[in-house]
């Protein structure tokens, strides 16, 4: 077996290429713009020269002798007929010219200044930020000097004419002159200008040699017609080589200066657009179709560029993606995987003496029969596909050290993810459950952390491929380890909808016969015989629920309606179970179960509670419809009267306002004051109606049950359907946009009545008239706009935060530090507490006292 060699990149040094280095690293000198000869073979000395690497299957690289995909490519170079300025370093060249003497190349600083800036040079050379700062300071001082302190030559002003022309007192400086001036600078001068002469000298940026990137980074593609289509970079380089050759020929033929200059400028243009095709004042080079070429800078930049697209975001194998659908019968930490996917994704298992026979069976079954295997990896790293032909041979040679890639099976670990992955609960580890069908199945209770629903959402599944990855996924990422959010120290996974409603109905006063009670519990996965024995012939819902709680569990908390929920030693004494105790985000019962019994127990119990709730609904039936929102006649009369009274009250205010007797709130105009009062009154009505409905509601009404238990909807929703939609507000005001002094043309100018300003006095069920509907649509549109504008804004804030904070961690000495060791905090959060291990950010001392009290 080969020795394993671990390599680690320790650091990366950045620098610029000197002409010497360009030549040294080159495999070929490029002299002709032609690419292929008549046979379609790359031309020697052309841009696709085989010495630069190969992109055609079958060919071998002339430099390293390797084949396609093995050879990473080699650089070449071209010799430029005349020096060309590097567009990205124009500013550096400009600064260097301005700050040095045009005659002798000495930095334009007098002795005193020079001494001042030259202190600590050794140290500064090693600290890039200091060097840069020093350079800036030197440039600021030196550029204004008019006379050389060394030779006394008078200095002229040098201006840049964008993009690449330098003017010295209105005379154009040719790159040749620039180069010869920059060559005169000694190393000290270069250092003082903020450069490290070992890595960059200003004259290197007047290019005499241009490196040609290997063909592997600009591969050509063969179209269906058999025609070759070259990469944008190859096009651009072709232009450069062609013009360069022309320039050479013209110079050696002694062509007139004008023609040479023109060609020179053209070459400068091509080299400039080769580096960056989006320079201001330079027309971008285009394809024949008119679309701009993507040259070097564009390749690196922006979201689709190399950095953000390829380097920080990587593609992976062993992943699947499909639509999700709910399955309330699987566990919270399971994911249903279609068999089709299970046949495709694999888990590598290493053959040992103990599992050899078992794994042989997998290979025997092959890729088509489940559970089989797709590949076998030999110890030398060769991957062999299992086919009817290879199977026998593989079975024979299989021995410890081989790796079998077997199909997914129940209980394997998978990483499950839904985008956008906004927090760590968006990527969790589930156990696989292979199922028929074509969609991923997940328990609806884990929708909340993923923020998923089933209206067509798709999710991704990844299979960890090494033992290390599997262990980390299992220990750190499983669903039960994510119950408590580090955002606020409360649970983010809990029961939802039916499960809450069911448990609410159960504990709010249901009584069932003993056999039914046992049936409910057993079908939910509870087999608590001890509790069953204590059941009488009729069992109250509270006792049924209590049967699944641990015997030493106690809790005092609040129900949604403000009454107390008291659990003493595993029995509900008082109150009901609702979303406050078992729901998602901040459920008291789940939080304290987690604290007391740990994540594994909690997730299991939550599953039982969940199924119990559903089973209760299965048993007693639960449905809601429009007729459930019907209100009794006398209540409707009351509500109508309330709305009328309110409108009257508003009218009174408007009259007071019209008679100019309104008492004005300081700092506001009379109109604003009126609006303030009116809005307050109108907002109050809807709440009053809600109260009326809540007080006179039928306890058995399913809509009310849903609202009371917190499973879905609230009283406000109900009152909007049944009685009054309420005031439509735009940016916190009543609607006042539209026509001049009125919202719609059917109102009088200046009309301030509730109706004319977007108050909808009827319920959805009554039907909205066109005016009401229009106002409702206005607010609807406004909120859509808000969402659409908010998403990118908050996304950008998040990106910036993540980028700034990503390398900060807690060290072994409990300090919080950044990557370079800078201390941010001496103790995290001043008390070293991990929010995810706290109860809402603190340790509950009352609970501790209670526990001690119970113990005695």
């Amino acid at each position: 077996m080969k020795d394993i060699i671990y390599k680690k990149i320790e650091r990366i040094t950045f620098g610029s290429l000197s002409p010497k280095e360009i030549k040294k690293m080159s495999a070929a000198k490029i002299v002709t713009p032609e690419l292929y000869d008549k046979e379609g073979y790359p031309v020697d000395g052309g841009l696709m020269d085989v010495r630069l690497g190969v992109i055609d299957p079958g060919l071998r690289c002339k430099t390293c002798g390797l084949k396609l995909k093995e050879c990473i490519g080699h650089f070449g170079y071209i010799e430029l007929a005349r020096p060309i300025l590097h567009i990205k370093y124009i500013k550096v060249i400009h600064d260097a010219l301005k700050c040095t003497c045009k005659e002798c190349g000495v930095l334009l600083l007098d002795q005193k200044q020079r001494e001042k800036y030259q202190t600590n040079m050794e140290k500064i050379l090693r600290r890039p930020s200091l060097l840069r700062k020093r350079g800036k300071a030197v440039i600021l001082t030196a550029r204004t000097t008019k006379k050389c302190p060394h030779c006394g030559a008078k200095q002229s002003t040098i201006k840049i004419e964008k993009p690449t022309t330098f003017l010295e007192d209105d005379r154009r400086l040719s790159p040749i002159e620039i180069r010869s001036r920059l060559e005169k600078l000694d190393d000290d001068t270069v250092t003082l200008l903020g450069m490290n002469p070992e890595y960059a000298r200003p004259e290197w940026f007047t290019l005499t040699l241009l490196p040609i990137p290997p063909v592997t980074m600009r591969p050509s593609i063969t179209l269906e017609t058999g025609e070759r289509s070259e990469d944008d970079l190859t096009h651009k380089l072709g232009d450069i080589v062609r013009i360069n050759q022309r320039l050479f020929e013209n110079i050696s033929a002694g062509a007139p200066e004008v023609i040479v200059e023109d060609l020179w400028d053209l070459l400068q243009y091509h080299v400039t657009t080769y580096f960056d095709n989006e320079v201001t004042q330079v027309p971008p080079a285009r394809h024949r179709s008119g679309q701009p070429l993507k040259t070097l800078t564009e390749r690196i930049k922006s979201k689709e560029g190399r950095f953000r697209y390829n380097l920080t975001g990587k593609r992976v194998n062993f992943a699947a993606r499909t639509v999700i659908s709910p399955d309330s019968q699987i566990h919270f930490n399971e994911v249903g995987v279609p068999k089709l996917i299970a046949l495709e994704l694999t888990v590598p298992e290493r053959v040992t003496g103990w599992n050899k026979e078992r794994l042989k069976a997998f290979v025997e079954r092959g890729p088509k029969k489940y559970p089989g295997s797709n590949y076998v990896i030999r110890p030398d790293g060769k991957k062999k596909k299992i086919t009817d032909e290879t199977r026998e041979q593989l079975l024979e040679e299989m021995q410890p050290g081989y790796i079998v890639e077997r199909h997914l099976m129940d209980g394997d670990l998978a990483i499950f993810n839904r985008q956008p992955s906004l927090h760590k609960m968006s990527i969790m580890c589930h156990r696989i459950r292979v199922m028929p069908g074509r969609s991923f199945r997940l328990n609806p209770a884990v929708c909340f952390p993923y923020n998923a629903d089933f209206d067509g959402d798709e999710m991704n599944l990844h299979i960890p491929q090494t033992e290390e990855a599997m262990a980390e996924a299992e220990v750190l990422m499983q669903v039960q380890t994510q119950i408590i959010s580090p955002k606020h120290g409360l649970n983010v996974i809990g029961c939802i909808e039916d499960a809450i409603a069911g448990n609410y109905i159960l504990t709010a006063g249901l009584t069932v016969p003993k056999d039914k009670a046992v049936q409910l519990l057993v079908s939910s996965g509870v087999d608590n015989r001890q509790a069953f024995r204590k059941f009488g012939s009729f069992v109250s819902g509270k006792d049924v629920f209590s049967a699944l709680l641990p015997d030493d569990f106690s809790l005092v908390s609040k129900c949604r309606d403000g009454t107390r929920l008291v659990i003493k030693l595993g029995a509900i004494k008082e109150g009901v179970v609702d979303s406050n105790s078992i729901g998602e985000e901040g459920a008291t019962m789940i939080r304290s179960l987690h604290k007391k019994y740990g994540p594994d127990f909690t997730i299991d119990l939550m599953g039982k509670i969940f199924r119990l709730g559903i089973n209760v609904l299965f048993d007693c039936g639960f449905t809601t419809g429009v007729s459930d929102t019907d209100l009794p006649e006398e209540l409707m009369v009351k509500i109508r009267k309330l709305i009328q009274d309110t409108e009257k009250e508003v009218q009174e205010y408007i009259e007071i306002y019209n008679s100019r007797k309104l008492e004005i709130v300081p700092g506001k105009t009379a109109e604003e004051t009126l609006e303030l009062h009116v809005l307050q009154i109108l907002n109050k009505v809807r709440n009053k109606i809600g109260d009326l409905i809540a007080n006179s509601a039928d306890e058995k009404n399913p809509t009310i049950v849903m609202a009371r238990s917190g499973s879905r909807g609230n009283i406000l929703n109900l009152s909007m359907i049944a009685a009054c939609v309420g005031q439509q507000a735009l940016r916190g005001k009543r609607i006042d946009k539209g026509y001049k002094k009125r919202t719609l043309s059917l109102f009088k100018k200046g009309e301030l009545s509730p109706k004319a300003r977007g108050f909808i006095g009827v319920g959805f069920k009554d039907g909205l008239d066109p005016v009401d509907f229009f106002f409702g649509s206005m607010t609807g549109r406004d909120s859509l706009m808000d969402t659409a504008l908010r998403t990118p804004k908050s996304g950008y804030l998040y990106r910036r935060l993540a980028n700034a904070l990503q390398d900060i961690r807690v060290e072994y000495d409990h300090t919080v530090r950044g990557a370079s060791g800078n201390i941010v905090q001496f103790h995290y959060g001043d008390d070293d507490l991990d929010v995810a291990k706290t109860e809402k950010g603190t340790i509950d001392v009352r609970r501790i006292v209670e526990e001690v009290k119970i113990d005695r």
Partner: protein
Amino acid sequence: MIDEYINRGVPEPLVRGLVKEAEDVKLTKAEIKKALDRLENEYKDAYISPGEAIGVITAESFGEPGTQMTLNTFHFAGVAELNVTLGLPRLIELFDARSNVSTPAMEIYLDKAYTKENKDVKKVASLIKETKFREVASEFVINVLKLQVEVTLNKKNMADLHITEAKILEALQSGLKGVVVKQSKDGIIVLKPSSVEEDLKEVYKLREKAKECFIKGVKKISYVIPIKIGNEFVILASGSNLAGVLSLKEVDATRTITNNIHETAEVLGIDAAREAIIYEAEKVIKNQGLDIDVRHIMFIADLMTNTGKVKGITRSGITGEKESVLARASFETPIKHIINAALVGEIDPLDSVIENVIVNQPIPLGTGLPSLVAKMKNARI
């Protein structure tokens, strides 16, 4: 007994809270000790683990709820409230550490002697509010013949704002340079440019300038309202001038704050700025009905202030000052960073997250942090 636990590192509020709770239910001494031991254990259990990627956790804690925040929130539920930017825009503004706040505001607490009576408070409020000349004048007239501005005073407003004519004259004299200020017998104030050249344009300009001339109060405080919080009066002000307000003797300088972080840092120092960031961020989060632990807010505040200067979380702030070239380049403006790195021969030490992702190496966080190598005897595969 209490001190013993505090000395062992258990936070004081927890210890005292527990003891108080225990005494309320009449636990015995031994039982209290038992409870304290349990507290100490739970506290130690809840310790944050070394290597925890706390930065990412904090970023997530803000990034995820960020999508739920509203874009345009203005306060005005109550009758007398100021309009203050809240919600996502305010959070962005805060983390950017912008020096000009979109709605500057102050909470001004008063010295005990002035908080009892509404009358006193109103008086202080009028002292604080910046009064401009136009607020005490009822009419500005340009006298074309004499090339001067004639201003009629508004006596009622003057009385409301406790301003005398003499004070106005004095303020105008010092506020308007190169202008002759006089008062005619009928109480009209006459402003005349003192320059020799007589030009109607100058007079016109002078009129506009005079309108905005500072008369009294604290500069930049454009609007004040006294409100009652608990049983004392507090003045809410729109506009911010911490140094100016604190110099008034009626103001309780220990509690008065502004929502401008940079101003706080300048006047009260960097620790105050840290507190201000925490206070402001918490206000936004509470207002939006979100629940984010203070530790996350404190963490960001610490990061923004730990160099002694207020730095924003922007490409020129914290991210721009990272040591690693690749980390900066992968965030924004990659070309600029690489070009500049090439000039100075910059070295990327690859010791933070993103560079190691780029070169396909384990990141130094969490389980990637320990660099222990087990020495295996008779290692078998």
